[in-house]
């Protein structure tokens, strides 16, 4: 199936975003147009400060564009009320953060429960923990887990509620090579075995090798949007 025949899950049309931080206003995104397709791994590749996290936040409904439209299954997120946007995240989005963002006072399995308690059709927290192979550490607090294990919990939390879209913000950014590879393997399996749609933002070209589609972003604009004809398994990727 080609891009033109596929049904986009997310469509961004001329999305712009600016931030005011303290007394300074900075324009981050300068009119982004892109589409995320169901069942694919999409990698958004860009250097630090290129606007990729902002883009991910807009897709995930945790931020709103200053102008332009972000459509989820043809529904414009910009027209959503705060409550609708919360429900959108609750029902459809799973987040994996670079620094895991686990609740330090909850154990691994409880961190997953944080997500399952919200969802209408979640998997059991233990099942999610098993998918990321962390059963033996499920009762450990984040401070008792390594970075990779914490990221596994973060992934388990993201997938546990069976979301339509998993958004990963530099999921390997804080991890060493081997642990990073292990995390990518989990994401790859989620896509290929569990048919999850995944968006990964990264500055690493290597990660892009396992994606169906790679979108290059620089200084707030899309510089290249290409389909990957030669998808590699994580274990085949050389860094």
């Amino acid at each position, binding site marked *: 199936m080609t891009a033109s025949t596929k049904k986009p899950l997310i469509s961004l049309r001329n999305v712009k975003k600016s931030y005011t931080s303290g007394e300074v206003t900075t324009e981050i995104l300068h009119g982004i147009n892109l589409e995320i397709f169901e069942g694919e791994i999409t990698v958004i590749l860009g250097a630090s400060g290129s606007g990729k996290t902002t883009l991910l936040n807009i897709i995930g409904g945790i931020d709103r564009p200053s102008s332009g439209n972000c459509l989820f299954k043809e529904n414009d997120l910009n027209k959503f009320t705060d409550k609708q946007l919360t429900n959108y995240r609750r029902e459809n989005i799973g987040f994996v953060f670079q620094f895991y963002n686990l609740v330090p*006072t909850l154990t691994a399995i409880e961190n997953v429960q944080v997500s399952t308690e919200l969802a209408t059709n979640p998997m059991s927290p233990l099942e999610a923990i098993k998918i990321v192979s962390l059963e033996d550490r499920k009762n450990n607090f984040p401070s008792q887990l390594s970075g990779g294990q914490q990221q596994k919990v973060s992934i388990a939390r993201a997938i546990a509620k069976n979301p339509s879209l998993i958004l990963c913000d530099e999921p390997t950014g804080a991890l060493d090579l081997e642990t990073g590879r292990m995390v990518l393997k989990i994401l790859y399996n989620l896509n290929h075995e569990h048919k999850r749609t995944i968006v990964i933002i990264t500055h690493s070209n290597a990660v892009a090798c396992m994606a169906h589609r790679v979108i290059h972003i620089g200084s707030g604009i899309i510089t290249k949007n290409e389909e990957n004809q030669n998808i590699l398994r994580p274990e085949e990727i050389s860094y």
Partner: protein
Amino acid sequence: MSVLNRKLIRDLLASKAQICAVMSIIAIGIACMVGMYQTYYNLTVSQISYYSQCRMADFWVDIKKAPDNIIKELENIKGISDLRQRILFPVIVDIKNISRPISGVMISMPETQSDIINDIVIKSGTYFTNDDEDEVIISEKFSEARGIYPGDYINIIMNGIEKKLFVTGTAISSEYLFMTPPGGMAPDPMNFGVFWIKETFAEDIFSFHGSFNNLIGKIATGSGYEQESALNEIKEILKPYGVYSVTPLSEQFSNMTLLGELGGLQLMAVAMPIVFLGLAIMVLNIIMIRMAEQQRLTIGTLKAIGYSDKNILMYNLKYGFLIGLAGGIGGVLLGYYFASCMTNIYKSFFTFSHLDNHLCMTVYLLAILLSVTFAVLGAAKGADSMIKLSPAEAMRLSPPQKCSRLFIERITVIWSRLGFMWQHVIRSVFRNPFRSSVGFICAAIGTAIIVMSLGMKDALDYMLYFQYTLSNKADYVVYLRDEAPIDIINDINKNSTVSKTVPEFIIDCTLTHGQYSHKAAIEGLVPNKTLVAPYTIKGEKVKIPTEGILLCKRISEKLHASTGDTVAIFPVKGYQNPIEVKVAGVFETTFGLPVYADFNYLNKIAHQESSVSMLQIKAQQTEAQKQYFLKSLKDSPLLQSVSVVEENKIEMENNFIGQMKGMIYSLIFFAAIIFFASILNSALISISERKIEIATFKVLGYHNSEVGKLFLREILLINIPGIIVGLPLGYLFLLGICSSYKNEMYSIPVHLSDVTWFISLIIAIIFVYCAYLITRKAIGSLNWQDALKIKQ
């Protein structure tokens, strides 16, 4: 339990030191409310039940002597529902081996017990028997203090005649729930008792067959008659028989004293919780704002996952709710204990048939509701900032704090000389204005509570000094049964140990000025010689005018009479024609409602020739000489009662000051809680916010003590101005407390000694320093190497 609730509990446990601080403040506020209100409730319930049990009178009338048959006429007055005539006289108790005369009041009672006004409650033994006429029932506290019990005999000098009476029982009565001896300010059960004897016996002893000198009665409720008009009518009918005084229940001494206490308790039950809960709101606010900042990322993540604002709001409100609930429950338990202690203290002052510590479930529920409401309000602020935070914003670093140059930084002459440390500290204090303000307010209120508590002791000390040292330089004050000629002084002076005897002439009267009137006793003093001299509340001696009378401010206000006005005196004894006199001056004093005049002037207007009603005696005696002197007074048929000034003073000190110590220590403890809670809370937040800053200082080579000094300076910069403001604030608190206990009989003087100001300052500074030491320990235990690894 939902996972968020588990997080909530763990968050609470993680910040237990700060939570404990807030809960302590809440608990103390609630404990004050529950303690004071429950004590108020205990006293009120006991008062109502006791008054009902004894059928407490609505009014008292003292008459010289009126025939019993007048009662029928009095009963016909509209609005009067019940009357009882009694014979009531002061008596002297003669106890073997005790040389001093002991004062008492003798009251006639029916031969057999019946439902009468101002009945007594038998506590041990029995009511009168039919066996013997010479029977007496004695007041319970006197019985316990002197070890005289049913079955014993007691010698009482009545109407100048000593009688040996058989004690059939001990009793209490609601009209004497607060008893003080003549000239005393505190209960003194060792030296004052109430003695109830059979009516027939009283008639015999006092030659009052078919007559009475004391009338008590009840006013019919809902009769539509004003109490005042009924009393006026009684007064009018009894006028020919010499009405000394008419006292409605509201002016009756023991009732008025109790009402004064109840008023004070009510005020404290409202004021103290407001202060403490107000502080708790502010401190909790700071914690919640900090929590919102600390949990910025977590909140952002939760929102990103799909938690709604409502979920976040509920989470925060639950946080406040749990703190409020725990503080409230702790406060209720502590308050119950306070009430139990305070009720026990009141048991030593007041005599009730039952004074129990009741459970007040409504108050407990209200207190917990109040505590929860205040805590939730405190938490709401944190919730507000969390809700306002968008998830994307939360994921980013918080923007740098808005900074602009402080005003003081523009004064370069000063700023450049402050040095880096002070510059850093000043910026830190002023860039957290809310937190610094709360610290300042806590220090001010903490200091104010110290000043207030020590000031209460000062006020009582001053009352004692005023009453027993400044205005009363006599060793004995002797009250005579009837007016005696001036020669009595010579009889007293015959005792070689007596160095000075000064006479005093007293006219019991009603003062009137236009439509206003007041019952008073004008004391005729010998200027420049008197040992009991009038002083103003400020301790200035009041000059006795040669003509006219001196009114105390409270009477002057009641009569609407000021200096130069003419008032009429209606003496209650003998010479009943009004005498017009000029008000020579008005002065403000602490105790009672005194009216003074010159001894000779007063005698002259009363058409007397140097009559004496009271003697002020100064003596230099060994213990043996004192006992001999007191014995000789006891044997005098002219004696009504004697007040031994030193003994009264000691009794007062033991009674009031002793009991007050517990209250003072408790209040100082409360102040300590405020200081510690405020400083520790603020410092712990500051440390957690500035972990990287502290770690950086350590990397640069600063010692813990040097980093600690930064915090000490910050603590001082906030708390010292707070303490300074707290000193006058404490004075205002004290003014409020003293005025709440003020009544027509006395006002508690607000008199703070220099030492108290100084001690308050030192205590406050010690608290600040101790709180700093704990802060320094926290700095020392900070893992600064870890702090350096915190991701930016």
